[in-house]
């Protein structure tokens, strides 16, 4: 563990001279099961290598658990509205499965991808919460995490906003306005439609990919069973034919192992990327919700401000003593309204940049997944061909008159 106080430039690995390109690379590794019984959980080693000035030292290692990642994700989601926050792997539903080697590996890989996406995102990588996550010791992390529960998550102004939201929702219902206010932007409508339908298509593809993994396992199992049975059947035959049976049975068992390997490869390098794609789309949906909320707020505040303005003018005309108070309120509200408009417009601008990024990213991700898929399948098919082919000369040697 490198001490945080090491002087800059003392490590020969990553010079901090301005001419070197700035980088930030993170690895999530070494899952370890900690704790007992119901309290048990997995911890990961998070290794950060960087030459960014905001970070301590060229390398830092911390221990983190899944809920720490969730904390980071939620903080980013709150602060960076409009950006598609990289998705997290799901919480596991089934207790039994939680500590299976496969699940742990899948999760580790997903978390690694998650953190690296944040670290390479132009805005997100500057986040203070990211720095906290990557550098602070475990106690600090735990404290930060436990503060985020319940309504303490929200800052006071946000709290007000919630009440206002509820208020306006109630008045909407009372006034008979059931449908929330929505943007009437045809391009955005198209995008929404695209995202929703995309999720369906992807979910279907991911489902089939998962099924394919299962099929590989099943085929592997049946090859193992078949191999065994063939060997036993061969024992009923004479010497040389019996030997061929035995060889065939062995090859069958060998291929069974290869199939299990390919099943794992498929899971990690084909099915997981598809699942990741689905999660990414869901993250976009979350941003869309944020956008809708921001739009609604902007509209409502604009409306309320207008009302207040009208009221103020009335009061000023009447030279009422309430006018002063009203003016102050009006100015406050106007500022809030402008803030809400700014928030909304930021989201719109960010979204369009993010969308382009998303499409490019996905083309690359999917391309890689396809490549791995094709490679794995080709390798498997070749292994199958080789294994069976080796038996042909032996079978040819078994002409009826010769073998006995």
């Amino acid at each position, binding site marked *: 563990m490198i001490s945080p106080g090491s002087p800059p430039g003392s490590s020969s690995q990553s010079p901090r001279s301005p001419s070197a390109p700035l980088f930030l690379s993170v690895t999530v590794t070494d899952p370890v099961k900690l704790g007992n019984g119901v309290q048990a959980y997995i911890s990961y080693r998070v290794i950060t290598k960087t030459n960014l000035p905001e970070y301590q030292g060229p390398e830092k290692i911390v221990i983190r658990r899944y809920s720490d990642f969730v904390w980071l994700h939620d903080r980013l989601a709150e602060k960076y509205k409009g950006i598609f926050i990289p998705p997290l792997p799901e919480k596991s539903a089934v207790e039994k499965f939680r500590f299976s080697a496969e699940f742990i590996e899948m999760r580790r890989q997903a978390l690694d991808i998650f953190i690296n996406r944040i670290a390479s995102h132009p805005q997100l990588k500057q986040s203070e919460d990211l720095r906290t996550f990557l550098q602070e010791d475990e106690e600090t992390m735990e404290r930060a995490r436990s503060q985020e529960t319940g309504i303490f998550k929200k800052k006071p102004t946000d709290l007000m906003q919630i009440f206002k939201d509820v208020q306006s929702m109630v008045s909407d219902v009372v006034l008979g306005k059931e449908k929330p206010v929505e943007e009437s932007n045809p391009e955005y409508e198209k995008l929404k439609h695209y995202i929703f339908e995309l999720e369906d298509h992807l979910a279907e593809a991911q489902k*089939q990919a998962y099924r394919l993994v299962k*099929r590989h396992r099943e085929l592997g199992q*049946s090859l193992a069973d078949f191999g065994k049975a063939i060997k*036993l059947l061969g024992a009923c035959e004479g010497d040389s034919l019996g030997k061929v049976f035995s060889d065939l049975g062995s090859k069958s068992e060998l291929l069974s192992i290869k199939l299990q390997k390919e099943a794992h490869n498929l899971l990690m390098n084909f099915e997981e990327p598809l699942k990741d794609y689905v999660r990414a789309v869901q993250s976009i949906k979350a941003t869309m919700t944020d956008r809708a909320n921001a739009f609604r707020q902007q509209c409502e505040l604009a409306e309320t401000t207008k009302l207040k303005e009208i009221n103020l003018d009335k009061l000023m005309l009447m030279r009422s003593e309430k006018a002063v108070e009203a003016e102050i309120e009006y100015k406050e509200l106007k500022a809030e309204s402008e803030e809400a408009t700014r928030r909304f417009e930021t989201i719109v601008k960010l979204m369009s940049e993010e969308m382009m990024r998303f499409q490019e990213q996905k*083309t690359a991700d999917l391309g890689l997944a396809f490549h791995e898929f094709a490679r794995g399948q080709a390798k498997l098919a070749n292994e199958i061909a080789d294994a069976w082919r080796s038996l042909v000369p032996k079978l040819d040697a078994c002409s009826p008159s010769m073998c006995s």
Partner: protein
Amino acid sequence: MMGAENHYGLEPPPPREEMETLALVDDDHPSTDPHPLAAVPATLHGGDPLLFPPPSPHSPSSSSPSPSPSSSFLDPPAYADVVFSPFDSQNGTSSGSNSPRCAAAAASEYARITVSDPQKEQETSGSLVPGGGTYVTYLITTKIRTPASGGGGPTEFRVRRRFRDVVTLADRLAESYRGFFIPPRPDKSVVESQVMQKHEFVEQRRSAIEKYLRRLAAHPVIGKSDELRVFLRTPGKLPLSASTDVASRMLDGAVRLPKQLFGEGGGGYAGPQDVVQPAKGGRDLLRIFKELKQSVANDWGGAKPAVVEEDKEFLERKEKVQDLEQQLSTASQQAEALVKAQQDIGETLGELGLAFIKLAKFETEEATYDSQRIRAADIKCLATAAVKASRFYRESNAQTVKHLDTLHEYLGLMLSVHSAFSDRSSALLTVQTLLSDLSSLHARAEKLEAASSKIFGGDKSRIRKLEDLKETIRITEDAKSCAIRGYERIKENNKTELERLDRERRDDFVAMLRGFVVNQVGYAEKIANVWAKEAEETSRYAKESN
């Protein structure tokens, strides 16, 4: 039992119109071959719901293949691949065209037997079912192998037979060819006939009869039998006498029983003509009881019966056969599971391809970014590869089914072996019973002689009894010789058949394994090519660290 043409009952995949309308690059040649798993199509007569399968708008059911021109995933390999020997199933041989089994089949006088054209007919004379029963007849076409010299005489025979005739044939063969491994006949399968659709059942039966007749024809001894010849060639009513049902047989036997028990003349003892048939299933109740008593004495009594199964070689072989049967059963099950697993993986790959095709189409239509268009093209590429691979899996599997079917065939054959072995043991039991009869007869004769010699001048009634007894002894001696001859003959048949089993099994198994392996290699190579190309196409996305 081995009724179905294909043991696996694999159905063609669910509706795949979407896949079939795919305009794929490098599409395989469309074929008009029927689905390899479908039975030979029967010509069906108009509109009879019994015989005419319901119209299926989507995929062909296994009883009426309707090949669409674009069902190209059922093609034989499109390349001229020397490795693949076309799979021919003529006359019950299950091996490739080069094996000696084909040569044996070629020696059969029947070049080809076909069962077709099921028709409903009315029961003419009084049937037990009120209102008149109907039954189905099948057209059986037999082509005779013409001698090279081109001798005269008809080369093709057509007869109409019903299932009951097949049963008769089987029963007659069982009587005449004891000790042989007679191919088992199709089941009567009462349950199935209730459960299945009529036309499906008829088709299954048609196919089973065809297989059965072909196997009979291929048997070196039975193929030459009169019974088979008569069955295949004689038009009109089958001239083989039908076996009566068990009920009347029992009644018949019960009538004779009192006579037998009270010892009227020769009614008590089996004559030579009777002993060549086993007691069980016959009409001679007394004989059945006696042999049963003998077998109990064999099992429980301390005394060894006069003749035992001493043939060590036979006993060893019997044990081996039992072992073989067990392993065949397991292997047959696992083969079925393997075929299913291969089927499933091919299917899922196809569905994956389909899902990706839809995705690609969607992305293309909705594309607003270039990266989307590129991605859509990538997805389509992968989908195409997946669909191609899926087709290869399916084709490969269709062949695998045929090759591994040998296991099921031999498992079915085990029944014939059991039958032949039980012929032997019942013949032995008959011999043992007769021998013990003889010894008790001799004992009685001695007693009578001793008693009558004490009376001066002879005891007329005793002398007469003694003479009757001596007559009975003579008959029984004849019967015993006959029974022993019959037993020896069966032993001999067992032996030759066991040798034939070993020989043919060896050849068939080698052919099976070779066929299986070669098929797997061929298709694995093709699938590897498909994916290698796709990997090549996507190589630009590969991680640099690779």
